[in-house]
């Protein structure tokens, strides 16, 4: 769905004036996008659904604090990212343990002979999910915002309340952890040596 920021601004103005129908339209327009962001940060559907609900609830309760000069999508994105970080912090321990188990299973199956392209893609997905599960909530969210959402490091630092150096370090650590997991999957097939 193409989202027109001008329409958002009009709807937001009405929502702030107490028009629930306008807020409903904003929810309907932005839900799928917020779900994608939350799912990438959280890694499972149920948690992402919780994050979507919580994001809109917080947005509704903060309507009076919305700065009319801002874009609604950016403002909502910020709420969604922070909500997802909080949920991730709460649930990460359990997920971390589960992903480790899944990762070990994947590692065992990866020794099977002759994996085809599809198997490789599943293997990569498992590895990426496992590597992301190993990241801290801040590293993971910063990486998702940079890599999947295309946000600049300055924007990410604004969203997450980080200094620029801290934001960069979070992304560097996330990338290095991913490399450690993913490069062994690619390098031997490409006939290249894995550089440290």
């Amino acid at each position, binding site marked *: 769905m193409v989202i027109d920021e001008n329409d958002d601004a009009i709807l937001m103005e009405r929502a702030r004036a107490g028009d629930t129908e306008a807020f409903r339209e904003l929810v309907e327009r932005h839900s799928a996008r917020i779900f994608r962001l939350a799912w990438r940060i959280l890694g499972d559907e149920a948690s992402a659904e919780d994050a979507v*609900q919580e994001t809109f609830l917080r947005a509704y309760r903060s309507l*009076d604090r919305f700065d009319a000069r801002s874009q609604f999508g950016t403002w909502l994105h910020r709420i969604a990212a922070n909500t997802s970080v909080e949920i991730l912090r709460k649930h990460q321990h359990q997920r971390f343990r589960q992903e480790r188990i899944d990762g070990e299973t994947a590692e065992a199956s990866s020794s099977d002979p002759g994996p085809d392209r599809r198997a490789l893609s599943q293997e990569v997905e498992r590895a990426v999910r496992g590597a992301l599960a190993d990241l801290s909530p801040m590293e993971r969210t910063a990486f998702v915002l940079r890599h999947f959402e295309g946000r600049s490091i300055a924007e990410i630092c604004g969203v997450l309340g980080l200094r620029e150096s801290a934001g960069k370090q979070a992304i560097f650590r996330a990338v290095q952890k991913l490399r450690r997991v993913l490069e062994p999957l690619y390098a031997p097939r490409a006939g290249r040596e894995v550089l440290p």
Partner: protein
Amino acid sequence: MRELHDEDLILYFYGEAEEPEAIREILASSPELSARYESLRQTLDAAGHALNVPERPDSYGAEVWEKLQPRLQPHRSRLLPFRPRGERHRELAGWLAAAVLLLAIGFLAGRLWPRPGEAVALSAEARERILTRTVATHLERSERLLTEVANAQTDGSVDLSAERRWAQDLLTANRLYRQITRREGRPMLSSLLDDLEPFLLELAHSPSEIPAEDLEDLRARIEEQALLFKMRVVSQRLERKPSL
């Protein structure tokens, strides 16, 4: 040639390197660095394609709203355009309505179910005073609502969503006071509340935005029945003669 670290390559990959041209030149001149960058690029591309977000149906937004709506309290705006007395009145109105309703229920209960042999908690004078005060407050708030509607700007359609919720609160109270005043033998008050109720009902069930011509029609009917005038007269009389 400056030394390149992985951090530089990561920033370069994301288009955030401070000197992208210089890095491009270094990569072009060094097969080893170029291979290192290629490995990084391949890893990050793979990570980008590896996570397949579960698809949501087209109805997803509506489903989210369905679950969300029961959790939302009506939003009370502080930024309504035609608010001569400020939004604070409206926020207070909800609290006042609840308090007044409790008083009225207490009044009604005391009136209808006095316990035999027990002294009634409130004297007749006290009940009359409370009833007068609560109805006077209700009339004052209703008058403010109708005044706002009468003064609303008519430029195309008019957003009456805030007035609608306000009318919903007042409507509940109005029904109760109408019954009490009738039962208590206060015909002038109950008659005025009778006249007021259709307007509150109409506003309470109006859409969020109504066309300017509908608003004009509503204004005309308020004027035709001299409702605002009657309310002011009764409010003044209540101040002078509480037993009215």
